């Protein structure tokens, strides 16, 4: 296990180099569905952070007990436990938000990001690394969701966190709040990230050369 990344590497990788949404293209269902305003995007990120952190820590603690052919079942059960906690918590304390997010909170159970992190990191490495990995990946997920939500909310409603930032004369681009806006914004942002990565790689190559 000498070649496994350290806690710090895991943490940093999740934020940009291995951003779950823009680089790994995982967890796209909530990415497209709940990003029409900043509030839902942030709530979604919070729920994913909670579930991913708890699931990673628990999986890491029981990693030596896991039987290979049963591991996915155990992952799913662990994740489902915490998703249920998060779902009921939102329903109790943030009722309106829970209504808005609808089925997307329960759907965290099948969110690929979490199963992927359990499989790739938590089932092989220690508790601290697994925790750092969960936080890094969640921050990356949050950055991606906020980026998409910011574009969509500002263009679609002229508001940011429901506070008006554009002049009242702004004609709302209703299409950005609707599903096509999610695909357009997401596609253009992936293009931007890829362009930036290419640009950076080119620059790094020049310095080395």
């Amino acid at each position: 296990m000498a070649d496994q990344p350290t806690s710090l590497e895991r943490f940093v990788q999740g934020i940009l180099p291995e951003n779950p949404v823009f680089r790994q293209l995982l967890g796209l269902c909530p990415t497209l569905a709940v990003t029409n305003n900043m509030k839902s995007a942030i709530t979604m990120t919070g729920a994913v952070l909670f579930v991913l952190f708890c699931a990673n820590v628990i999986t890491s603690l029981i990693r030596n007990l896991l039987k290979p052919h049963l591991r996915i079942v155990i992952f799913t059960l662990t994740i489902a436990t915490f998703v249920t906690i998060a779902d009921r918590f939102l329903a109790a304390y943030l009722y309106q938000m829970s209504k808005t997010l609808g089925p997307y909170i329960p759907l965290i159970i099948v969110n690929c990001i979490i199963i992927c992190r359990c499989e790739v990191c938590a089932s092989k490495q220690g508790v601290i690394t697994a925790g750092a990995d969960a936080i890094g990946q969640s921050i990356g997920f949050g950055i991606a969701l906020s980026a998409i939500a910011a574009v969509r909310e500002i263009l679609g409603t002229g508001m940011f966190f429901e506070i008006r930032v554009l002049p009242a004369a702004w004609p709302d681009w209703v299409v950005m709040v609707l599903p096509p806006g999610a695909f357009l914004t997401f596609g253009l942002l992936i293009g931007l990230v890829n362009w930036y990565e290419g640009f950076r790689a080119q620059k790094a190559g020049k310095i080395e050369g």
Partner: protein
Amino acid sequence: MTENANTMASESQNAAPVIHVSPSPHLSNQALTTQRIMFDVVIGLVPVVLMALYVFRLYAVKQLAICVISCLLAEALFTKMRGRALSLKDGSALVTGIILALSLPGTAPWYVGLIASVVAIGIGKAIFGGVGMNLFNPAMVGRAFVMIAFASVLAAGGYQDAGSTVDAVTQATPLDSFKQTGAVTPLFALFFGLTNGSLGETSALACLLGGIYLCIRRTASWEIPAGVILSVVVLGGIANLANPDTGWTVLHHLLGGSLLFGAFFIATDPVSSPMTPKGKFIFGIGVGALIMLLRIFSGYPEGVMFAVLLMNALTPLINRWTIPRPLGAQ
């Protein structure tokens, strides 16, 4: 390094003369350039533009200027971003701009034309790789974007401005007034185009003149408009038989709305329509059928834009169905 180059040079000298083997067509018309096709389309659009200028006056001037200028600027910007040679000369951005302007209402605010142009060229064309690579008709992509984004301005109500000094703009569009109140616009007005509507769609006469010119020049394939008109006649006839009291006959269906403009100028875009004659006919029939479906059963009064976009999505499939069989093959 030099040794390598030497061996390569000597190899190419010793090699037998190269015989070029390429797939057909072996005879091609050198004069058939993108530039010529686009110039032809512009000529075909002349009667439509003149009619729009006559009916809508300054509204048409404003919308045409906004769309053409912003399409050209967007084309220059995006080709520069992609590091390609500037392709304004081939005229495709100009044609997109004119068709886009003619498909919008003259009353739409300035930003509608601007945003539609940028989306048409950027998302409709540049992202797919530029001229000849786009899956969907760029002008219709731009129009669909603003139609959904600014629903209040581009819905049927947005076409009407009761305080306008231009006569046509004070009325409701023929398709909308029929949908809302059942009022039937006289065929004469629909044919000559003295009604409200998108700038280029009102005059069936102008669309026919320009369209027939394009078909004779073979810039547009006659199979597509023929298919559209045939399927509208058949489906409109059935709708008419099923509901004979409305007074909106097959001829109203044919002459009203943007049907002829769409059939001759939008659906015939050579890039996003099928390649084989049979495929083009199927494509036209599909467009016509979707138009009638949307006109009769959807909430929108008109369906040309969505019909063309939906059939564009089926173009690769139609191409695959209608691959001509080589002589002697099974």
